[in-house]
């Protein structure tokens, strides 16, 4: 067991433990905090995989921005320990949890059965043609940049457009409710 | 009644709306302030200059001949708003040299400095000009007992002040001329 393995187990415990504690917390604020711990653990796992950019995005976007917003909303709405405990919600979330764990176990079993095919790197051998040279896959920022803005330009634009549509929808919904209150 | 003039507020210019020139002006002001002479006093080393009518700790004073001025009339005890003064009146012995024209003197005179509010009423009311609020301002002690000034302490703090009237001398003179009171 070398250093990297040791660190892997530390951070894996951190992320899985954080996730479990999040699920079992009664109060939503500690739950949100454990979710942050879990996300930081995942970011550390990315670092071990030498995907620094992904790790930093994980911290910057999820732990840094999204969870601050979560906490902000939780604190502002003052959700108590009994928030979201209706039996239907409980049942649905329990069911979804079991389904996802089942899927995870299945996929792990699949990898275990056929190690050679599933564990290979994503197929990027065709290369991205930028400036006449083919890029070798790596986790560097440059690759992400060229990948996003050269090869996957259209999907990126489409997803951006989808997000824009979602935002416009939110604006319209919130406008409508306030207008109906006035009437 | 003066005519009310309504001033038109000028719209802010672009540079004013960014607030940056104003911030720079403010920064300049504070920066020049850094090098001005300091106005604070380094207290234990430098003492403040007290105004002539300063009201410090109340004290008992003697006249220039070194005689006790207080006649224990108890007016100050009566007027004292926080009841800080307590006087035990006593008489001056008949044979006391230099004091034969004085009937009374305080046997004990206590001012409780934990009660005193430095109002100066005692000084104002005293018919003998025997009690003064002088320049002592940093009176402190470790116990409550220490904060009660007895007669000896009050005279020690008070000392001697110049006297314009020399009342005892006048009384003595009057008596010698056969015209007491």
């Amino acid at each position, binding site marked *: 067991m070398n250093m990297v393995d040791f660190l892997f187990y530390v951070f894996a415990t951190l992320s899985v433990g954080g996730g479990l504690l999040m699920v079992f917390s009664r109060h939503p604020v500690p739950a949100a905090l454990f979710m942050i711990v879990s996300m930081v653990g995942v970011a550390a796992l990315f670092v071990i995989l030498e995907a620094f950019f992904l790790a930093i995005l994980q911290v910057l976007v999820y732990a840094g921005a999204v969870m*601050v917003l979560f906490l902000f909303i939780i604190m502002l709405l003052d959700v108590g320990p009994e928030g979201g405990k209706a039996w239907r919600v409980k049942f649905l979330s329990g069911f979804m949890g079991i389904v996802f764990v089942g899927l995870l176990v299945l996929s792990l079993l699949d990898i275990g059965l056929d190690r050679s095919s599933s564990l290979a790197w994503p197929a990027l051998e065709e290369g991205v043609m930028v400036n006449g040279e083919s890029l070798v896959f790596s986790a560097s920022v440059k690759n992400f940049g060229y990948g996003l803005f050269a090869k996957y330009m259209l999907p990126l634009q489409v997803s951006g457009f989808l997000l824009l549509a979602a935002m416009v929808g939110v604006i319209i919904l919130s406008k409508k409710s306030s207008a109906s209150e006035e009437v | 009644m003066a005519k009310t003039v309504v001033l038109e507020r000028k719209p802010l210019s672009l540079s004013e709306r960014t607030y940056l020139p104003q911030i720079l002006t403010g920064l300049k002001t504070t920066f020049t302030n850094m090098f001005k002479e300091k106005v604070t006093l380094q207290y234990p080393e430098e003492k403040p200059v007290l105004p002539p009518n300063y009201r410090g700790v109340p004290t008992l004073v003697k006249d220039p001949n070194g005689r006790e001025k207080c006649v224990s009339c108890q007016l100050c005890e009566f007027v004292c708003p926080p009841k800080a003064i307590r006087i035990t009146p006593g008489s001056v012995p008949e044979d006391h040299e230099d004091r034969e024209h004085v009937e009374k003197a305080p046997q004990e005179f206590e001012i409780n400095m934990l009660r005193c509010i430095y109002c100066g009423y005692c000084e104002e009311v005293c018919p003998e000009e025997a009690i003064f609020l002088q320049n002592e301002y940093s009176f402190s002690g470790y116990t409550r007992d220490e904060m009660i000034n007895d007669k000896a302490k009050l005279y020690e703090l008070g000392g001697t002040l110049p006297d314009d009237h020399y009342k005892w001398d006048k009384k003595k003179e009057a008596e010698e001329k056969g015209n007491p009171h």
Partner: protein
Amino acid sequence: MMLDAETLQLVGMKFLFALLMVGAVMTMAGYSVLAERKVSAWMQGRVGPNRTVLPYVQYIPILGPFLRGLGIFQPLADGLKFLFKEEIVPGHVNKLYYYMAPLVALVPALTTMTVLPFGEFFHDNGESFPLILADLEVGILFILAVSSLGVYGIVLAGWSSNSKYPFLGGIRSSAQMISYELAMGLSLLPVFLWVSEPGSGLSALSLTGIVASQAESTWLIIVQPVSALIFLIALFAETNRLPFDMPESETDLVGGFHTEYGSFKFGIFFVAEYAHIVVGSAIFTAIFLGGWHVFPWVADPWPENWLGSLLGVGCFLTKTVLLIFFFIWIRWTLPRFRYDQVMHLGWVRLLPLALVNLVFYVILVSWLDQPVATN
């Protein structure tokens, strides 16, 4: 666990350097507290702390009284005071999170400095390495990410105190962070564009790359004054310094998030605030003020040996200290914003300005790079 001697030595050296750096930053934070007190005193016509003495130093003829007058030993006294004060924990707090909050506030401030270059080491064979704990390819993103975690300390403190003023402080802080992080990130994008123009071969996301590009051309504050201004304002907001000290605001929230804190826990919050300022100043120095290069446009006048690297570090520290002074200077000049003014400035003014700035530099950079592309 297998650890050979080489790995151990490497880890040990890194550990030592990290300790040194933490020591340096903490000392600077302590002395920024002193500087704050002194500068505020001078600006208000006072003299500031000048009473603390060490047993023997005060008897040195001229130096002793001079140091005493400067209040050089005041940080020691302040720190000891925090250590020996009575530890009061109010009965209504949420203990675990209450104890955790000061640490959560301090750790990000100390973590950001791992990717902070502060000088250059010239090797005998002519190579030069930046002096840095970890030369990350995405250093600036790392700093943005980790410093955004600093808000949790304040939010946790506000929430675990179970008391209304700290709670309001925590809420305000999170809203402020979200608002200004956007402007901060957007103000940095033109910098990335400028530094990583095609052909420069520099990685714009690492601070060393940015400093190197400034050595080649000129300081980025001259090239991109608007970006620098937005970044500086956002930096003030992110470090909760005075025009933006919403979470603290003594006048309307008692003490804000640290109302219920006392003794050493409060001390940690205090040090964390100043550590944020120190690291923030250093980052601004590296990105916009040319790092350890002394003049814009001119190459460093010193030789490329140990003397040069020492002078470079000194230059970097001087700029950082001047910037810390600027932070203090602003604090004692401007009044605090109202909460709605902070939100207005962040969303209505800074964000559009940052966007316009970004578009302008996108067009400018693409126009400047035109001949290069056609060649």
